């Protein structure tokens, strides 16, 4: 094997695999996303030298592999339809969540792909803006702008959802 020992790779796997799968699901369904992440960890263990920025390297590799898988299958439209309807949720539904997991997921899905990617990397990947810039091959300023725009978009989506639910509640109350 390469110079990365199994213990170190295992540590990164435990720490990042969930977020990496979530990141890959921007483009792929759940099983394909898992395959992409698995391939990246196999590649990591075959590296002769450990990457300088391990976290950024992992996310960048997952991104490249996911995009490649998407191109290879050439079923993007069909896959996106399937992503929206059949695949399991992105987040666990837990009672202590202050946001509804399904609503949050819907709001994130509604974002433009570039903003969604940055928000995912920042919030669940825990990457700094510099690391995000490395992963996406853009400037830090661009990453910052996309993140701000993404958060704004999610907020707007959730408010729309809340107002819609509020309207339903008030109309139900009026009927009663």
């Amino acid at each position, binding site marked *: *094997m*390469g110079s990365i020992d*199994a213990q170190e*790779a*295992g540590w990164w*796997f*435990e720490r990042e*695999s*969930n*977020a990496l*799968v*979530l990141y890959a699901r921007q483009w792929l369904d*759940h099983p394909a*996303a*898992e395959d992409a*992440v*698995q391939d990246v*960890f*196999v590649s990591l*263990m*075959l590296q002769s030298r450990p990457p300088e920025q391990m976290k950024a390297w992992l996310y960048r590799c997952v991104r490249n592999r996911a995009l490649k898988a998407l191109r290879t299958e050439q079923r993007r439209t069909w896959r996106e339809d399937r992503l929206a309807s059949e695949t*399991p*949720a*992105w*987040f*666990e539904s*837990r009672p*202590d*969540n*202050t*946001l509804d*997991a399904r609503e*949050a997921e819907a709001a994130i899905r509604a974002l433009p792909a570039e903003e969604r990617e940055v*928000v995912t990397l920042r*919030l*669940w990947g825990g990457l*700094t*803006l*510099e690391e995000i810039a490395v992963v996406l091959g853009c400037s*830090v*300023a661009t990453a*910052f702008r996309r*993140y701000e725009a993404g*958060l704004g978009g*999610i*907020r707007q989506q*959730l408010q729309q959802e809340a107002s819609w639910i509020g309207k339903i509640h008030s109309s139900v109350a009026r009927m009663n």
Partner: protein
Amino acid sequence: MDREDSLERGADELARQLRQLRPVGHGIDRDALMFRAGQRSARGRLHAWQSMAGLMMIVLVAVLAWLNRGPSRTSAAPAAVASDNAPPAQAPLASLGHHPIRADAWTDRHLPWANEYLRLRTRVTDEGLDAIPTAHGVRVPTETINSIADWLRLRRRTAQASEPKSLLAELKKGNLS
């Protein structure tokens, strides 16, 4: 860095709430992943080993072919030389069955080697197998044959000579004409 700080300081409530959401778990088996990585790594090593063995085999075959070819080339050359003046029919060299080469086709680069060969041949004819050089070599007269014409004359006479001793005596005297 400033942007990073401002993001951390001003992390709004929405970002905090979103961070609380935990991505769903995955079905990747860590042990299976490690096994797969090891398997792929071993496959790479096997290819390297096979490539190395194949390369060494090719080199070995090439060296053996070269070694087999080398001596036959060097020994065939003097036997193949024939002069326009001498009939090669009874000559021992001509009986080897090689195609004769015209003497004028030889160039000066063959001359030192031909001289050495002829001297050795003469000594062996005269003194027997003891004259074959050892690892330390033997001393042979070097001043006798200086041109290809001398060599051709000597060769013709060697082939026809019934008494090699007399030929050597002439050779030593420098009387080759």
